[in-house]
């Protein structure tokens, strides 16, 4: 069993309006040092061992989990204890 942690973030140049709103809010709370905010998604998968796990997870991201037009992704694979 493997645990796959996938980070999905908007590509550079894609303006997600919620980031500006979050930044303004943090600044208003007194955290004036915050100059930029990027938000994305974190997806955890628990998958059976597979010889081509990197390729399979890449395909999952390309086909469904991320939209390559606006998002980049990277992922880590680690051993997971069977539950």
């Amino acid at each position, binding site marked *: 069993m493997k645990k796959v942690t996938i980070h999905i973030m908007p590509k550079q140049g894609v303006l997600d*309006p919620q980031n500006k709103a979050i930044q303004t809010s943090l600044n208003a709370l007194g955290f004036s040092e915050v100059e930029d905010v990027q938000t994305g998604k974190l997806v955890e998968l628990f998958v059976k061992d597979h010889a081509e796990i990197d390729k399979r997870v890449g395909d999952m991201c390309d086909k*469904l989990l991320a939209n390559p037009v*606006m998002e980049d992704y990277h992922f880590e694979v680690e051993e997971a204890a069977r539950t």
Partner: protein
Amino acid sequence: MKFAVIVFPGSNCDRDMYHAVKNVLGMEADLVWHEHSNLENYDAVLLPGGFSYGDYLRSGAIASASGVMQQIRAHAEAGKPILGVCNGFQILLEAGLLPGVMLPNKHLSFMCHHEALAVANHETPFTTNYEQGKVIHLPIAHGEGNYFADDETLSALKKNNQIVFTYENNPNGSAADIAGIINSDGNVLGMMPHPERAVEKLLGSDDGIRLFQSLIENWRDAYAVNA
């Protein structure tokens, strides 16, 4: 002409679409649940608005991976017309049948009102009954209608006349004021405004009816000349 209105869990403009083609235009139409669909006997596919699969992951993403999409792709490849409105447009983008993607509206709010649109290309099978450049009024109702594509895609859309409707007063931040685009083969149209909700004066506008009339007339010219 026979229309299939595809229904996903969370579709909510399916009956509006059905009403427009069936009752107002007098065509044959079926509401087709996405799991039991055989689209072979339909001349046109309509992807209605709503929140398919609760907009989980990204708007339209889960529906675009649904089994019915293979048939919709085959329908598109056969050159038959497909209209995606609102969430239907988002599904077509996620499925890669149209280029680009939808971001949340510039000011983050869900918007629901009539917008003025210009008919930017009246030479598509969906728009021949409009005059080029004509300003029409259709309702919008979306939180994610801020069209985004890279510069290369945008120039290709402009060069090939694939931008079909543009906002007169861009409400959501869409690139190039885009409200609707068509694929390069000219048979798959996606648009955020709702023509099916503007087919009777009672609804505040009947500017949407010409879109369906264009589609029906062009289909008759192509397939049913002697029928």
